[in-house]
């Protein structure tokens, strides 16, 4: 299914955080959304996931419009995300964090839980197996019973991705997944992302500042500045794009 944004606009008071953005993510694509700080990238994520309502423009997924749909419904329709500042359920275990995202797919009802029927035990076992599966991608199974807030930062970021995956999305929105990672971890992350894309057949839209990751795995890029998309194309093209360079470095830099 294709995720399509047309003319997406969001104002905050007088500021145009997102100004007429068009974006299209087809099935299975790995697209990067880059741009200077404050250019509106995370706001686009917030609009896509229903946290904000757009002031103008449309968001369609397949044939369905996502505007006005509540965030949890949008997630069930197939869009999951991670956050710029990690938002794990800090006092709960790693297992709980991932399990909760899979709640919609539980195979028992509240009465089964209350009376502890066989269905409940089977359902819980299934959930546990699913969780172990997702965690194994990131080599986090050994930490399954640890409290999420106690994990090292890099593991927390990976856990957040695992959690998002557990909600069985068709589109995964990753908000600066490599923030705070060293070059070794970034390389591992690049492998994880490609593996996820191939294994689960999902599309990925990625906000990131680390150019090595962006240039390394994204098929296409969109560059934002002051709420607008100023350039699109393949990574090699974007690297040479004058407008992009000006946006990042300023206008007086001599163009080589």
């Amino acid at each position, binding site marked *: 299914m294709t995720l399509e944004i047309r003319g997406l606009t969001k104002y905050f008071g007088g500021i145009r955080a997102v100004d007429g953005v068009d974006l299209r993510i087809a099935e299975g694509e790995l697209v990067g959304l880059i741009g200077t700080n404050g250019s509106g990238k995370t706001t686009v994520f917030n609009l896509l996931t229903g946290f904000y309502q757009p002031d103008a423009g449309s968001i369609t997924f397949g044939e369905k419009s996502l505007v006005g749909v509540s965030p949890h419904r949008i997630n069930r329709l197939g869009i999951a995300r991670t956050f710029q500042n990690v*938002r794990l359920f800090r006092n709960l275990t790693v297992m709980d964090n991932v399990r909760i995202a899979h709640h919609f797919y539980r195979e028992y009802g509240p009465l089964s839980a209350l009376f502890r029927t066989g269905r409940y035990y089977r359902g819980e076992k299934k959930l546990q197996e699913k969780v172990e599966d997702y965690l194994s991608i990131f080599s986090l199974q050994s930490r399954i019973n640890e409290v999420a807030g106690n994990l090292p930062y890099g593991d927390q970021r990976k856990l957040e991705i695992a959690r998002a995956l557990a909600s069985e999305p068709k589109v995964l929105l990753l908000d600066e997944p490599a923030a705070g990672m060293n070059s070794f971890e970034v390389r591992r992350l690049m492998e994880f992302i490609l593996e996820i894309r191939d294994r689960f057949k999902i599309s990925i839209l990625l906000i990131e500042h680390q150019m090595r990751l962006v240039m390394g795995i994204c098929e296409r890029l969109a560059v934002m500045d002051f709420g607008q998309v100023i350039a699109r194309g393949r990574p090699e093209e974007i690297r040479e794009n004058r407008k992009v360079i000006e946006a990042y470095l300023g206008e007086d830099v001599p163009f080589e």
Partner: protein
Amino acid sequence: MTNPLRNLGRILSAYVLLAAGITLLQATGLANPYWIQILELACIVAISAQGLNIIYGYTGLFSLGHAAFYGIGAYTSAYLMKMYGGQSQAAFFLALLAGGGVAAAVAYLIGLPTLRLTSDYLGIATLGFGIIMKVVFDNADTFLPELGGARGMTGIAKMSTVPWVIFFLLASLLIVRNTIYSSYGRAILSIREDEIAAEMMGIDTFRYKMVGFVIGCAFAGVAGGLYAHLYTFLHPSNFDFFKSIDILVIVVLGGLGNMSGTLVASFGWIFLLEGLRVVLPPGYVELRWVLIPVLLIVTMLLRPQGLFGTREFPYLRGRLYR
């Protein structure tokens, strides 16, 4: 995997042991009837406190009006029993459930507009609701004279025997435990932890907030019914803001989101109150209320996470968890 029948057996034997044991003590006169009544009160308070534990400890909803739902349950079941139930045990059971049901229904209505408020505002809205209900209780005799209003309601049958109270206490613990250690319980916990992230991971946070709130208030309603039929006299001052504070203190002292802590704190609080009444010399009984706040302050300063923190008694710990 445990045998569910063996579990059931264990629970039933615990019940029989407790209920029969205490009733025996009561019947033979070995135990002082005054203290048996205090024990029953402690159990009732524990049920109500588990309710607030669900609402605040697990769902993270700051409710300062819990006593109002306690009162709604009390008056509802007392009225039904008095008008229609007589002395029938079956009627009593139904009346208690009705009390819980009405409390749950009111909670649903109140929840619809207020659960969208942020924490401190929710607290103040529930506090306001509590005060409004107290005013309603005070003036209840204008529309239903049997309720007594500010004069109080009398003529309630003493139906809350030890077996009933123990039954509902164990039932409440079981319900909380089985719900919390399930996907539904975890959905509720996720709201407390990070409501926005929970919403984005597919949890219908409004629905689960409502579930937590309604169930918690239903617990209070049932407890209120048991209370009414223990003391056989109801007065609106039993259901004021101070009572809501009492329950809040119990839940926090025991450890928020901790069944064992709530249980122990309920018993501790009631027995401490009564114990001090006995221990202190006659003219100084009111000193309790000077000592208890000091104890409260010291406990919070030394152990802000509550007495139990996050540790639970063995049976109340989920098996699939750490």
